Structure formats: C-alpha cells, structure tokens
C-alpha cells in the first residue's frame, strides 16, 4: 500500500485525506495480526531494507539515473580506457604536434604531441581522484567541526565559527594560489589545498543543521530517558543530517573538480607530464586565437568537466530525496 504523506511545508491543505487511523476506540480491543494485515497495517512481505527503499526513490528520478550512467561512463573511460587505448603520456613527440584527429589519433594531438584522447583519460583520472578525495576530506572535517560547534554552543561555538568566518573572508582563489605556490603541486597537495578551503562552507552548513536538530523534540526525548549527549549526536542528530551531508559531499565533488580545473587553467595545477582537465584547457587556450581551428584542444576537456559536474549535481539532488524517509514507500 502506498501512503503518500505530504512533506512538511508543502502547501497541501490540512483538510485533505490523512492516513487511515486504524486504532481501536479504546485500549480494550486490540487488533490481531491478521486483522491488522487485512487493514494494510502490517507488512505482508518481509520489509525491504532502508537502502533498497532509498534506491527506489532514487530510481524514480530519471535524470539522476541518466546522470549516474554518465558518471559511470566517465569513470570507466578514465580508468579502464587506457588499458584498451594505449598512448604515450610521458614522452613528448614533436613530430605529431597539433595533428588533427585521424585514425591513429582519434582526437588529435596537443602542442607537445601527446595524444588528446589518451590525455583526456589521464587528466580525468587526476580530476576525479582529486575531486572525490578533496570532497571526502573537506566534508568529513567540516561535518565534525560544524556538528561539535553547533552542539556545544555558547562561547566555544562563537569562537569556532569566527575562525570559519575569518577563513571565508580571504578570497579563496588567493588562498589557494598561495597554498599551491608554497607547496609543490602534486595530487596529494592539490587534495589538501582544495580541502583546506572547502571545509569552511561545509562546517557552517552542518552547524546550522545541528542547531535546528538540537532543539528537535526527538533529540530532547533522549534527555528525558536519561541518555547522554553522545547518544543524541550519534543516534539522532547525525542520521538526520545525513541528507544534508551527502548532498554537500556530491556538490563538493563537482566544486573540487572545478577548483582543480581553475588552478590547472592558471598553470598552478599538477605539473607536466601529469595533467588534469583544467591544465588541458589552459594548454589549448594559446591556440584558440590562431587562424586555424584547433577545436580538439578545447572542447573534449571542457565538455568532460561540464558533463561530470552537472551529472554529479543531479545525483546529489536525487540522493537528498532518497535519504528522506518520508518519500520512501513500502
């Protein structure tokens, strides 16, 4: 039986159908299991797991399914592709500088003779690895920081949040440029550089979420039954903030890929022969103005960035719904 309960805050009038109240008039007559089942209260089959029900909500969103397909394809392309499409991405080959797409080089070559398609795969590896890793580090740290700040409250909260404000008040591109100049830009350093900036926003958001959740009655109820704060945070606040956290994480992936691309574009990203999509764009930019069209230097990497980021964002949207128990049906 599908029960549609309007989500809170929806404009549905209260005067429309409410779920059927099957409770008997007084405590004296109780429903037997059989009766309850007939009335649709007891599950007739073994209840499906939370994950399964979440997936069903997710799968309803066709855009998200398509996005998932896109992301899967990009991941396979970057990590499995090189196994089938062998190219030399270490040694430059001046004989094939800027060669246009052909049978042997499907997407042509760049200004130092690397095969463009192969480079797209290698650059994608960097972009995806840095994007995901930076997002995980930033969200983990930001969540803990924000949750602690929000739950403790008071002066500690004020202090912790002023630290975040201070961090956010520095123009992020300056911050990142300083950091990436100070350290030799390798993948690990880039992950660290992006995470250092990105956790600030996450912590602020999670703190806000914790502040609202902390006053919820079900969190207060823990106190009434004699539970500790730890229980309130771990069993009630974090699970209910999980939707926000997951959505933040997916957006963080997209944002990290873009930040890495911007750094690469400025020439501050990972250094050759390693590359990422942003560095590839930067390399192609010099030839954008020339009379001959070198489209294969710009479009593949640009499209890859846009496609990945849009797909990840759509997935994040659908995940938020999937984690909303109220939208799950039996």
């Amino acid at each position, binding site marked *: 039986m*599908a*029960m*549609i*309960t309007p989500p809170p805050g929806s*404009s*549905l*009038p*209260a*005067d*429309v*159908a*409410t*779920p*059927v*109240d*099957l*409770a*008997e*008039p*007084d*405590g*004296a*007559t*109780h*429903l*037997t*299991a059989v*009766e*309850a*089942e007939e009335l649709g*209260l*007891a*599950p007739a089959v073994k*209840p499906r797991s939370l994950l399964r029900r979440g997936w069903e909500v997710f799968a309803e969103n066709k855009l998200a399914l398509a996005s998932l397909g896109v992301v899967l394809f990009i991941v396979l392309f970057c990590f499995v592709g090189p196994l089938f499409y062998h190219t030399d991405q270490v040694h430059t080959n001046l004989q094939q500088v800027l060669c246009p797409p052909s049978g042997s080089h499907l997407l042509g070559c760049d200004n130092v003779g690397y095969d463009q398609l192969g480079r797209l795969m290698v650059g994608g590896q960097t972009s995806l690895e840095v994007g995901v890793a930076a997002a995980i580090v930033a969200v983990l740290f930001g969540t803990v920081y924000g949750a602690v700040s929000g739950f403790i409250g008071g*002066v500690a909260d*004020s202090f912790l949040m*002023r630290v975040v404000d201070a961090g956010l008040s520095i123009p992020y591109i300056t911050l990142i440029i300083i950091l990436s100049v100070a350290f030799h830009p390798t993948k690990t350093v880039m992950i660290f550089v992006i995470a250092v900036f990105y956790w600030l926003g996450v912590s602020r958001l999670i703190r806000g979420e914790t502040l609202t959740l902390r006053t*919820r*009655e*079900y969190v*207060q*109820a*823990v*106190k*009434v*039954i*004699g*539970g*500790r704060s730890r*229980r309130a945070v771990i*069993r*009630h606040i974090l*699970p*209910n903030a999980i939707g926000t956290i997951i959505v933040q994480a997916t957006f963080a992936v997209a944002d990290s890929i873009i930040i890495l691309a911007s750094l690469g574009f400025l020439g501050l990203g990972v250094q050759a022969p390693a590359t990422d999509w942003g560095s590839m764009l930067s390399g192609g930019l010099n030839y954008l103005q020339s009379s001959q069209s070198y489209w294969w230097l710009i479009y593949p990497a640009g499209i890859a960035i846009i496609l990945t980021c849009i797909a990840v964002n759509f997935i994040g949207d659908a995940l938020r719904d999937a984690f909303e*128990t*109220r939208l*799950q049906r*039996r």
Partner: protein
Amino acid sequence: MAPLLEIEDLRTHIRLRSGVVHAVDGVTLHVDEGETLGIVGESGCGKTMTALSIMNLLPVGGHIVGGSIRLDGTTISDLDHEAMRRIRGNDIGMVFQDPLTSLNPTMTVGKQIAEAVLLHRPVTKEQAYDRAAEVLDLVGLPRPKERLGEYPHQFSGGMRQRVMIAMALACEPKLLIADEPTTALDVTIQKQILELIDDLRRRLRMSVILVTHDLGVIAGRADRVAVMYAGKIVETTGTGTLFVNPRHPYTEALFEALPEKAAETREKLYSIPGAPPDLVHPPVGCRFAPRCRYAADRCRAEEPPLAGDSFGHDFACFFPVGEEERTGARRSVVTDRLPEPSADGSAGGEVQLVTEHLVKDFPVTSGALLQRRIGAVSAVADVSFEIRRGETFGLVGESGCGKTTIGRLIVGLEKPTSGAIRFGDADLTRSRGREYRRQRRHIQYMFQDAYASLDPRMRAEAILQEPLVVQGVRSRSERQQRVAEMLDHVGLPPGAIERYPHEFSGGQRQRLGFARALMLSPDLIVADEPVSALDVSIQAQILNMMRNLQRELGLTYLFISHDLAVVRYVSTQIGVMYLGKLVEIGPADQVYLRPAHPYTKGLLDSAPVADPEAERAKVRAGVTGELPSAIHPPSGCRFRTRCPLAEEICAEVEPPMRAFPGSGHLAACHFPLQPVLADSPATAVQAP
C-alpha cells in the same frame, strides 16, 4: 426574501499525484442575510474546502467540478478570475486561522488594510488610510491612528486576528467567512474575538460563515449549523435544535466524545472508532457507515439523501437517532466510573512529587559574542505544589503562563533557577551523573507534538527500545518482549514496529509517544497537551486509553493543557497558573464549581461550552485584555491588570496562598470569590 448565499450541489475535487480527492461532494446550503451559519466537522471533512470554493481560492489542483454558488442572486462559481477578484474582499471577506502567517511582516498594518480598500474602491490614498483607521477602531484596537504605522510583529496574536478581521471588513462585505478564526488563540482571547465577530455582524448587518471543529464555539455564536462529514453535509438545522436533538449518528457521536459531557459523571467517553474515510476512494453508501454503531446493510449499499421530517432539520441517515429513541430506553453506554475523588481530596496515596518555591528565569541576552544579559523572562515564579501517587494533577492556564516550563523542569529538560523538585526521597535538582540518569526513568514526558518527538529515521521498534538501551537493558529478547507488551497496552498492532513515524496517523503517533513514555515503567508521566492537536473523536480515544492505563499500571499524571474541559475530565487535582504564578490549586470539582480566584472564574467563563443555552447566558463574562509581558511582570498580584476586582493593595502586596473550604483548596487573592477558611496565610506545601 432570497438567501444571500446559496450553494447547490457543490462538488470540488483536488487532483493529487495519488489520485483525485473528492474534497467537497454535493454540498447544498444557504446563508440568510444577517445570520451566522456554523460549519462543523473533524479535520479532513471538507469544511475548509467548502469555504475556499466560495472564494474560489482553492489550492493547486483544486477545481469546482459541479454545482453552483450564488451570491445575492448572481452565480459566482463560474466567474473568471478577474470578476472573482472584484468580489473577493469586496462582497466576501475572509478571516484565516493563523493570524501570524496571514499578515505580511514587511508591510505596516495600515498599508495592508489600505491596500484592500484601494483595490476595490475609487479612493485616494488618504481616504484609504482613514478607512483603515476606522475599521481598526471598529474591531476594538486602541489608538488606531497611531497603530496604522506599526508592523505585524508589534501586535499580539489576538490583536493580529483583530487586524485580519479589520482587513476583511474594510470594504463592508455582505458575507464574512471565518475559517477557524480562534483556533490558534487562547480561550480568553477566543471569547473576545468571537464576541467581536458577533457584534460586528449585528452592527454591519453582515452574514457570517463560521467554520470550526469546536462545538463549543458553534454553540454560542451560530444561528444554524451544518455538520460535515467526508465531504458531505450530514445534518443541518438551527443551533438550538441540533444541540438538543441531534438526528445523525455522527453528530450524536461528536457530542458524546466531548469530555465536558462526562466531566461530572466521569464515565468513559464515547469515541468514534476508526478515522474518516479516504476521500480519494470514498466508500459506497453512507460514508459514516463503517464507523457507525447503528449501521445496517442498507447503509453500506445505498447513500441516504439529505432530507428531514420537520421543517429546517435535515439529516442524511436511514436510521436517525434522537427524538423517538431518546424518550425510550437510554443507549447502553459503557459505564465504568472513575474512582470518585474522595471527599478529603487525598485520592492518591503518599506524596510522590513535591516542588518547592520553583523559579525559572530565562535570560534575555543581546550581542552575538559576549551575550550581555539585559533582562529575564520570569517563566515560573515561586511555584509550590505536590502530587500524590495515583492522582492526575491538571495544570491549566493560557499560553505563556509557565505550565509547559514546569513540566520541562520536572522531567529535567530545563534546570530551575532556584527551588527544589523532590521525587520520593531524592532532590532531582541536586543529583548528577549516573544517579541522575537512573532517577530519570521514574518520570517520563509525553510531548505535545508526538510527530516531532519521534525520530523520523527510526522505526517504531527502535524508538520504543531506545529507553531500554539507554537504561542498560542488554537482552534483546527482553527488549522485544517489552515492546510487544507496550504496543498491546496502547492499542497498536504488533506489525506497527516495522513502520516509521510518518506512516502513522495523528492518533497512532500519540499512542506511540505514550508507549515510549511507558517503556521504563515510570511512576509519573508528565503529559504536555497530549490531545490538543487531535480531533474530538481521536481525543476521546487517547483520553480513554490514558485513563485505562492509569488504572492498570498505577500511573500518576501531571496533565498540562489549556483545554479546561479536558483537564476537568481527567484530573483529580487542578492547579491554575497565571504568568508564572500558581494562583489556585485544589480538588478538580472544587476549583471548577467554586473557583476562588477571579482568574479561574474568568477562564471558566471564557471556555466555550457545547450548550447553546449556557453559552448565550454568559454574556460579557470572561477575562478582558491580554497577558502582560513576563519580562516586566506587574507588581503585587500579577493578575491585577486584568482583574475586575483589583484594588490598590493588589499592586502593592503579593497575595499569599490562603485556604478555602474543601481540603487542599488554596488560592492567592486579596479579594477571593469564596469565603476564606482560616485567615492564616499558608503556602501549598505547608497546607494539610
């Protein structure tokens, strides 16, 4: 003369993802000039949708699919948006339930009212503002000219509702639709607002449609009543006739579910089994048949028409109740009476919980980082009382009087500023750590909003087991057994453990919340407004359940509510609070029948009673004015600013608790309404 408003066979559908809701299904009614028509029914019965259909303000997906609405001879149901816009606010005014969300917080009140005038009248801005001041004066707002420039947040809830009414009246409509106009307000303010609407109707010769779930509100104000159920009118007649002789079983059941009907006898309430039908798939035949105790096969197959035997009393039932039946044998109502509160007031056993000079101030701070303290809200000020084992202590008062804070102090959700709470031998305000957590299990809390108090990500089973886990019950099978036991106690099926809170109905959630409170076998349950969000019939189910379990498990209740009828029905002892002070305390019947404090009397007079005779009799009684600020409470007696008997001494000396006839009946007043028993000042704790 033709009636002002005629609705014929109105059908309104709302299209949702899950199907089409037949929200209004063949409603026929009329409103005469200058009369008040009451529309009553439980939530989800279509009364608000009927009102919105008249205004053509249906929610997204809502459409009038059949029937006609005629206002003053013109059919308005098929007018286009432009034409309807001219009628809205001009010929028909509407007052909504929640004055907090119906006013625009970024516009001055004067501008909002003037806007309504400018829309419909060819006037200048000045004239519109003059009119705004005029209507504000009309609805009894002091200094209307000055208040035009104020914003909604500068008004109290009652005042905002007055502004809403003023807005609805700005263009002198012929018809005023008031949709639950007082549901969000306190009884004392409710009475003032209802009186205002009534008074304006007479002075402006308007017609009024009063939509409400509260039979008491209807009793005193409506000339005629239409009872709605599942999108249909099941009974309609004059108010007096309806209350004396309801013919439809649903109307009858509604009356019998009212706690005030059983306040003196304390018989078990009649509760309508089940809940209103799903209007996506309305049942065949009479829609009430599945819940009706008189239903026969014919009711389930055929739909009874709305017809009557005498002029003006229509009902849709094949087997009407009332009249003939009533003169004969009384219906067999389950009569199991509560143990009468014994004459000396010690219905319970030994003293279980004592509060001594309990004080709670909430600091008012300013500044983000350094949080300077600039004042304090005196939420609870020197409150002392005791609760005996097995009794139900009812705590009543207007919102903001501190009754909820007392409940939260007792269950440990707030720390008192000073004073003591003793439970048995232990002082709850002093214990810490492990000992404190162990003590917690003896006192449990039932939240006002059960839905908000249940973690949306937990299944019922996990919710119910959590208290046991916290208190260290390790064995899984033991926990499961206890959960099953509790579900059975509160009348939920065993299959309920698999469900999430959002999969329960309102009444079921309240049961679940109650089951959680019972998990630790507590001695005392603090129930904060446990039934105020529920419909009458569901309310009766919950009250019956609470009462049954009190007897079975030997529970003690601290029952906090603003609803005097409910409190009287369940309580053996009653405490009346006003602005942080306990003003009167005593055995329930004593306090209700012989109130000593003027505030108690005012509250009792304000509460609407489902009895037209009694309602009309108590004209102009009740409490005037509004609750003063708790940041700067009045000196001396805090009630003096609204008290009809107040004299100079009331402002200077705080009245002590004094004893009145009837044991344990105390009140704090210089000029009590009852003779003082012994002229010795006493506090609640020292008294016998």
